[in-house]
């Protein structure tokens, strides 16, 4: 379960590109690709292994006109999906 205080990072050998606001994510070890829409790309692009989830939400709140609590729930749920998909993992020492 992703919490606002957690810090996440991309797994090793997961690379991506943001193209026209969409993201193509590649897990190199099994050649699995994942396409993300504009919002998904915006979230992934802010996962840097240092910034907590709450910080990502803060940044997205400046872009998207969504009530903050709802935005936080949506972002946490989406990040959990990326963890489950083998794209992200908790950063060491980051909660």
């Amino acid at each position, binding site marked *: 379960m992703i919490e606002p205080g957690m810090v996440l990072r991309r797994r090793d050998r997961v*690379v991506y590109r943001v*193209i026209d606001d969409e993201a*193509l994510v*590649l897990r*190199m070890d099994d*050649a699995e*690709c994942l*396409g993300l829409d504009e919002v998904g790309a915006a979230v992934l692009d802010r996962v840097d292994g240092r910034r907590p989830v709450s910080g990502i939400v803060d940044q997205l709140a400046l872009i998207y006109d969504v009530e903050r609590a709802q935005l936080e729930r949506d972002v946490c749920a989406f990040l959990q999906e990326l963890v489950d998909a083998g794209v992200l993992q908790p950063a060491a020492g980051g909660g």
Partner: protein
Amino acid sequence: MSFHRFAGRLWDRDVPLSALIELTHRCNLQCPFCCSQPGEDPAGTPLGRARLLRLLEELRALQTLFLTLSGGEPLLHPDLWAVGRRARELEFAVRLKTNGHALDEEVARRVHEEIAPFAVEISLHGATAATHDRHTGVPGSFERLRHHLDVAQRMGLRTTLLALVTRHNEDELDAMRALARGRALPLVLDPVVTPRHDGDPTPRDWAPTARGRARLRALLSGGDAPAPDSDEGARRRFCGAGASTLAVDPYGVVSPCVQWRTPVGDLHEQDLESIWRGPPMEEIRRLSEQARRDREARPGTALGWEDCPGIEHLDGHHVGCAGHGACEEREIEVE
């Protein structure tokens, strides 16, 4: 969203998702059907290390993800390691396209540790020593390849076998598949023996026979072809050449695709973005749209097996294209 759908959409959006750099045309094998001229061109000025490294930065800025390091034989190029390490830092998905002849224990270890490639693509020319060695012109190359495949697999390198289908190995397609399956390796079969980059048609003497091509079609239709793409009908270009792919030769000449060698720029004189957005590449895209319209005017034609504009450019004939208009994508699916 599937990779094919995402990549296919890029055909119309002019983002070079895939790039191929031929580091050198030198090679340690002597395949008579190779599309590269053997050895270096004395009239050409190879790209130096600094320009190669700057090229990586330019590709990164253009959002390239898949970077193929090819040749000739890329393992012979002294800057492979510097280029590979920088490519890793820039988070490219690096494909190393090699004949495997130099991929001994020490080299494989360096590839694994320094480049950490997405894939190592190794050429296979037959299922027997007699056939493979006939293709490479080097006795013992098959046994050496088998040993180096052992090394690569033991090292954990994600390895794919690439087999160019010729009239001299077309009877071993099933055996090559069995060899690949026995090692749990994907095998990509390519039926297109192209003329040399300078138009010399000699390699076409090795092209598969009609029977061999029919056998290959049967194999591909048996499950190795890419999955159908629901967006396919909406695309306006023949393929991704010059639209989602580009190629760079050892001398800095940029072309839309390794199979479509029309020069569109020179990295000694131009930056990559200028080339990518310049009029010659725009003309390539126009031709690609025309090629698609031409093909669609012939209902019933199998998608992607005819009329590759690049090969037409090389030899003036229509021949089968292995790419299904998605050459750079197949290795991901054929596993």
